[in-house]
């Protein structure tokens, strides 16, 4: 599902966020990206969602090389990835329903289908009945769940989350993580960046640790270079 082959990323300001990172994530896997803040976790997620492109190396998402993807194909590419942010990035001037429906609206889904899917997504995160509320009327935990509903509403095969529990207390964090686990159980590939090692340990999933732009353990593919070369 995801293959990083000796990926390096240097930002225009000269900061080198990643220095030759290699790992792979198989379809249907749930993987944690751990490491201190600033270690490069967010950069990995940005490279997956094509918010950034690698300076060197290859990123393959679902078999597609993100370096060679043309700009006009990026929107369609992003529709296959659900993204959850720490600050959830909800639009405060629109009700919960419209926020969740946005990924379906941009892909020109029929209205009837949108209605069905939005309700299903809100049901999955336990917010059915709050469609007409403003995100500002919801608690932080609920806002985060709206963000998750938006990420999964178009049923993407890949779900990525950047510190989704960063602003939540331990109980809420656990609840949100269980939600991600449920999506993994129905076949979605899930990648979660978090610095919360307790949560990672509790869930017992594979964890890819990134330190100083390098991977320290959990790459999941020892024979990786040859794997990329054969593609």
């Amino acid at each position, binding site marked *: 599902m995801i293959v990083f082959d000796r990926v390096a990323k240097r930002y225009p300001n000269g900061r080198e966020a990643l220095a030759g990172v290699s790992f792979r994530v198989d379809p249907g896997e749930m993987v944690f990206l751990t490491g201190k803040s600033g270690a490069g976790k*967010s950069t990995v*997620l*940005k490279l997956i*969602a094509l*918010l950034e492109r690698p300076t060197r190396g290859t990123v393959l998402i679902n078999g597609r090389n993100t370096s060679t993807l043309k700009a*006009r194909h990026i*929107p*369609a*590419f*992003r*529709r296959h990835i659900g*993204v959850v*942010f720490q600050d959830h*990035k909800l*639009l405060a001037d629109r009700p919960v329903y419209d926020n969740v429906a*946005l*990924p379906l*609206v*941009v*892909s*020109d*889904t*029929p*209205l009837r289908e949108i209605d069905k899917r939005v309700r299903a997504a809100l049901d999955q995160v336990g917010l059915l009945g709050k469609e007409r509320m403003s995100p500002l009327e919801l608690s932080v935990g609920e806002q985060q769940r709206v963000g998750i509903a*938006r990420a999964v509403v*178009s049923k993407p095969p890949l779900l990525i989350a*950047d510190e989704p529990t960063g602003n939540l207390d331990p109980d809420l964090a656990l609840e949100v993580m269980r939600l991600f686990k449920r999506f993994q159980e129905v076949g979605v590939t899930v990648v979660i960046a978090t610095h919360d090692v307790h949560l990672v340990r509790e869930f017992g999933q594979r964890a890819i640790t990134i330190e100083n732009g390098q991977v320290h353990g959990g790459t999941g593919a020892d024979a990786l270079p040859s794997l990329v070369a054969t593609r």
Partner: protein
Amino acid sequence: MSVASYGARHVQAFLGALGRLARNPLASILTLLVVALALALPMSLKLFVTNARVATGDFTNAVDLSVYLKTDVALSKAEQLAASARARPGVADVTLIPADKALEEFRTYSGFGAALEVLEQNPLPHVLQVHPAPDASSTASVESLRRYFAAWPEVELVQIDSDWVMRFNAILDVLRTVLVIAAALLGMGVLAVVGNTIRLEILNRRAEIEVTKLVGGSNGFVRRPFLYTGMLYGLGGALLAWGIVAVTVVVLARPVATLASLYGSHYSLTGLGMEDAAILLAGGAVLGWLGAWISASRHLSSIEPRA
């Protein structure tokens, strides 16, 4: 994607654009006013040219010749000349205006009555007003008539009355060119005003655009509501311009009627016709759409989501 859902998206984008205009009435009204003025100006000028043309339309067929006889030609001789002029082919009618009658009219209408008293003798000549036959009204035929009468020894001067009509038409042609230039410049003004308004709106909705692109919204999808907003500004401005021009016509109707009656005419001002209105509305909508498109193309691509 079905046609129905495609249509529904556009209706949604249209209604959304309308809603945003309504939510921010002051800024919307200011933009609408500027667009309206920019459109009303060339439209008024066009109306002016059209009206001037219609008002003088009656005279374009005025190809009468004024044949001024020498002052020493006697009235009886003038009557003979009038008769022979009448016999000439291509002449429909000849009216003799005797010098005395001409002086009388001049005294009455010119306001120089008192000054004329000082004159010992009538300085005015007898005049033959020659009206060419309809089949001899072309410029060439009238010119040949002029040459024919000018050759008479008793004739001092032959004047073609339509000269001033031709000059006036030339002035109208100049005005029409001015109109085209003004319309082009003001059209660019509309592009700039709508473009700038759209630019501000894009900046205001930056967060929304970022999130939309993040969940896979294409540039086309993100641009759509702005194009509708621009089109609404253009269309609304054009409607307002229509109103401005209509009110102007109503306000001017009475003074123009008074002016026309002074010239003995029953001329009345022509307002915007259906065709003019259609051009105005379509032009406004297209300009607004284009302004928004230019602005959106420039500014939307620079907004990319950041995580």
